[in-house]
């Protein structure tokens, strides 16, 4: 009876080998296909989550977001797999030029938060506080009176502070321009 066991196992081992062969072949084939066209990944709905791209991008700022998106799209949004791939030194493949990342749209209809003012050096106040639009439209507007500065509402307070700040910069700019025009004449 003990002699029978190995012989019984041979067919099952063979089955396993055959199944594994097909599974592995399927895997490689899938990889190859998406590697050439990328369309397979897209049709299967592999949408890249910007949060995941951001997460990896923060860990490895030297990598291009396009490469990260390409890898995430191909592995179905597996951050761990992409991270592992980078850490083991295999690096990320460069996507084909035709690759158009499908980026998931935030679930709410609210527009994305505006990027906080960048703090780079040598920046003027108009750029820093995004006042370029107001410089043009408000060029002949009179400076508003000091708006009352406090509100019980947090958002309102924030808005009032921003307004006082913007007014202060725009008024200074207007005054400086007037002075210069006066000086030139």
């Amino acid at each position, binding site marked *: 009876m003990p002699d029978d066991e190995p012989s019984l196992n041979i067919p099952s081992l063979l089955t396993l080998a055959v199944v594994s062969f097909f599974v592995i072949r399927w895997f490689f084939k899938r990889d190859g296909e998406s590697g050439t066209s990328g369309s397979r990944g897209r049709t299967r709905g592999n949408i890249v989550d910007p949060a995941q791209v951001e997460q990896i991008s923060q860990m490895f700022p030297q990598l291009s977001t396009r490469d990260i998106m390409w890898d995430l799209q191909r592995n179905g949004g597996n951050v761990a797999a992409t991270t592992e791939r980078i850490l083991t030194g295999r690096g990320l493949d460069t996507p084909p030029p035709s690759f158009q990342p499908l980026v998931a749209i935030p679930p709410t209809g609210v527009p994305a938060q505006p990027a906080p003012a960048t703090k780079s*050096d040598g920046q003027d106040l108009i750029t820093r506080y995004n006042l370029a639009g107001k410089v043009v439209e408000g060029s002949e507007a009179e400076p508003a009176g000091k708006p009352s500065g406090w509100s019980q509402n947090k958002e309102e307070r924030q808005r009032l*502070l921003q307004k006082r700040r913007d007014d202060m910069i725009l008024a*200074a*700019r207007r*005054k400086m321009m007037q002075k210069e025009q006066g000086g030139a004449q």
Partner: protein
Amino acid sequence: MSSMTQNRLFREYKTLSENPPDGITAGPVSEDDMFHWEALIQGPEGTPYEGGVFAAELKFPKDYPLSPPTMKFVGGGVWHPNVYPNGTVCISILHPPGDDPNHYEHASERWSPIQSVEKILISVMSMLAEPNDESPANVEAAKMWRERRSEYEKKVREEVRKGLGL
């Protein structure tokens, strides 16, 4: 401790909003983080800084008001003997009483919990008008201020215009 600090900062924010001193606007960048403020200071009249607006960030320590905040001009910084080239402001009110890196400040001029953001900003405004030549933070600027005043004033005026995007 931290909530006491936040309450105090919130009260200071309220006072500064309701009764802002002339030429000063200050408040937290976002109320979610009361320890990080941004301030605008107008250049004092009768100085080369006149007409300008200078933005600075204030970072408060967790034990404020026991310890003072730090203040740093942002953007292009400010050309001034008491402002480091990276924008950090160096004046006595921002130094805790126990620590006098310059060995000339009177304890009464230095930081103590009875000071406030408002007093700091007003002090910085008068610092712009009257540089303190002892122990400068920006040696180049101090030298220019002492020896080549008209060049100093010209440079400041140019930076004022640039700061306003002109």
